[in-house]
């Protein structure tokens, strides 16, 4: 019982998501192998682009993967989840569009300024969440419930009821593909954000700090770590992730709709974190797990679409698969399976041992 606890290093944590992904892939191989076909085609604007289900899965999971990364950090540091990411993403998009419209022309320069400002706005809102969590010690879910319920109204207030259209080459280059590069741009955004976080963890000790604060805040403080600061940092990083996701969301459609931009993404992001084997109670985390979780969710959705399930009905099937995945990952089921496995394995061994004893 004491030594049974497996260490979390190695593949242990990623086992369930990897198996889930493998099952999805095998299922699709048997269902319809053409699911995996990837073509190089001309799109509407005459660019060579890669098309196919796999590309579209990886492409359309981009926002989710980016937000899931940020969500992992907040979950790990604060032991709770931020449910306002989608709504704050709408604010981010609204600020971006507002600034762009205010400046008139859409050039790379104005885009950068607009993005910087929308990043700033998102971070301010995330710091509001972070203050409630870190200073006032309110559970993250409740603290973020406030913005969850009113952030889309703030987005509306910024930009009015209209759904501004942004038809521009630069916008479509960010939301779809850059001419000459056959891979959808959002995929690069995921890589970029992943790389950014990787470098942060590589060149700072933030990872150790976040895990320490998430596991034992009091002890972390006594070792000279400032838990408030670490929690705020995790919210700031989430804010950056949210504004990148908001940017992609706006550019992908070439329009802003404050009601539908990144809608319901918070639930999927939390799911991605959980499917990736991270504890929702905080502490140790693996970003790769969450990213994997995001792609699993998207692959599931795309598979269901490919099976002609109506988009509105996808939720029901998704729920069933989620339940199966979390049941398979639950410690109780794991322990029972391990016990069963041990019994099966030790059964014959014991018998042979007995025989030896006799002879």
């Amino acid at each position: 019982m004491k030594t049974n606890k497996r260490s979390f290093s190695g593949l242990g944590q990623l086992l369930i998501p990897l198996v889930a992904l493998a099952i999805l892939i095998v299922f699709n191989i048997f269902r319809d192998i053409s699911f995996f076909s990837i073509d190089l085609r001309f799109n509407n604007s005459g660019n060579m682009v890669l098309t196919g289900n796999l590309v579209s899965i990886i492409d359309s999971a981009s926002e989710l993967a980016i937000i899931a990364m940020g969500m992992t950090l907040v979950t790990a540091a604060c032991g709770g989840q931020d449910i306002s990411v989608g709504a704050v993403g709408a604010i981010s998009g609204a600020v971006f569009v507002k600034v762009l419209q205010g400046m008139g022309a859409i050039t790379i320069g104005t885009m950068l300024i607009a993005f910087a400002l929308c990043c700033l706005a998102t971070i301010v809102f995330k710091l509001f969440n972070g203050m409630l969590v870190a200073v006032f010690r309110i559970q993250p879910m409740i603290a973020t419930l406030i913005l969850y319920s009113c952030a889309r109204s703030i987005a509306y207030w910024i930009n009015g009821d209209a759904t501004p259209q942004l038809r521009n080459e630069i916008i479509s280059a960010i939301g779809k593909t850059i001419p000459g590069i056959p891979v959808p741009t959002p995929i690069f955004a995921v890589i970029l954000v992943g790389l950014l976080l990787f470098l942060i963890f590589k060149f700072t000790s933030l990872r150790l700090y976040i895990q320490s604060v998430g596991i034992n805040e009091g002890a972390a403080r006594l070792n000279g770590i400032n838990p408030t600061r670490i929690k705020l940092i995790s919210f700031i990083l989430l804010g950056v992730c949210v504004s990148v996701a908001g940017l992609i969301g706006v550019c992908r459609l070439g329009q802003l709709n404050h009601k539908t931009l990144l809608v319901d993404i918070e639930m999927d992001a939390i799911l991605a974190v959980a499917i990736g084997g991270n504890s929702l109670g905080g502490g140790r985390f693996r970003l790769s797990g969450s990213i994997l979780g995001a792609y699993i969710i998207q692959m599931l959705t795309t598979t269901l679409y490919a099976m002609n399930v109506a988009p509105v009905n996808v939720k029901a099937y998704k729920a069933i698969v989620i339940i199966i995945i979390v049941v398979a990952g639950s410690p109780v089921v794991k322990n029972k399976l391990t016990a069963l496995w041990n019994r099966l394995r030790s059964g014959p061994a014991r018998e042979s041992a007995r025989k030896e004893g006799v002879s």
Partner: protein
Amino acid sequence: MEDGIVLTMRGISISFPGVKALNNVDFTLRRGEIHALMGENGAGKSTLIKVLTGVYEKDAGSICIEGRDGEANIHSPQQAQNLGISTVYQEITLCPNLTVAENMFIGRTKDRIVRWREYEKRTTEILDNLGIPARASQELSHCSLAVQQMVAIARAVDMKCKVLILDEPTSSLDDKEVAMLFKLMRELKERGVGIIFVTHFLEQVYEVSDRITVLRGGELVGEYLVSELPQVQLVAKMMGKSLDDLAELERIGQKSAAGEETVYEAKDLSSAECRPFDFRIRRGEVNGFTGLLGSGRSESVRAIFGADQVTGGRVTIKGKPVRITKPHDAIRSGIGYLPENRRRDGIIADLSVRDNIILALQVIKGMNHPISRAEAEAFADEYIEALQIKTASKDTPIRSLSGGNQQKVILARWLLTHPQYLILDEPTRGIDVGTKLEIQKLVLKLAEEGMSVTFISSEIEEMLRTCSRLIVMRDRKIVGELTGDELTQAQVMKTIAGGEARDENE
């Protein structure tokens, strides 16, 4: 079954993967006796208790309980309770958000409907009967820890338990509260309850117990009457060492002579939890804060380290004024602090041994200068070797280590920062005698190398062996400072009790 015996455990064995935790252990409890269960950490005390209370399933052996024929089947804590075996754990296992009366009755009545008035009436009777100072309708979180513990005992008693297990009940109580608890235990003994008393405090065993069973390494050493087993022999039996070895324990090292240079000095230092005090420590000096629990000894060192909110005072380190308001400041000024409560304040349970070791050094280096993996591995290897930390690997989460080894990891964490001043608050609490000795030796060695150390322990002998200066506290004030020849148990006791202070006044 022999008359008066309430519980017999015969040939109990249990093993966990890779460990034989208990091997053929016998235990007998008689009616109306207080029976101490002794042993070092890892001796199997808690395993035995857990077998008895149904938390673990035994591999072999039998348990018989008075008044029941044949073997008792115990597979869950509930079944144990139904058989009259109740346990009061070190951590309070009541619900703080319920009232005292509810805590007395919840989980054991068959009623589907709660009859508040009746519960409160009966609770009041029980509390009065046992002399417990609590009100039935009080929310439990409004009571002191000692009272909460007593409510837990009252609950067990009211369940007509024949066997009452007290697992380290005194570790968070001060002397007065311990006295109250012992009074209650004696009262229960009179009523014929058999009490199993698990503790680390030897004096307490001799104060209340009738009989002692000693375990070592999962095996039974023997059962003795308290009157027939002198304290030294008890320790010898627990450690499995001969008396000569223990003599060495008495002679442990030479106290090092303190240097002249003052390393740390505080004037009028005060925090939210303690009154202003002056304090200084010299290079290579080992000093101690002593006093009863709650006298302010831990609060004082917490103020030095900035762990509580510092409210005033001037601090200088090697003559230079510094501002220490939070632990981070203290660590950067070269102070290390091993906290009193290892599990709550010390370890980061889910992190690996390696990460736990490098944590404080990492903080000193700052967030932008991470310790590389290779360096961390090297540090971990070095200290696992130096302190002989028993762990499966560097990647093992610290929580799966034994208490003594966890403590060594925390020590390693601070030694790695090469502090000029190290504060150790109860480094030897709850760990086995062998490791205690190692830690004391280590403290003396560090002092010899020039480190200043503050050493706090509830066991005065330990402090007398290691410290060259003792600061005595009472009621959150420093009431005396003992050095040289004054460092005797009698003198310390006298100062704690207050004789010294009154003499001065006259």
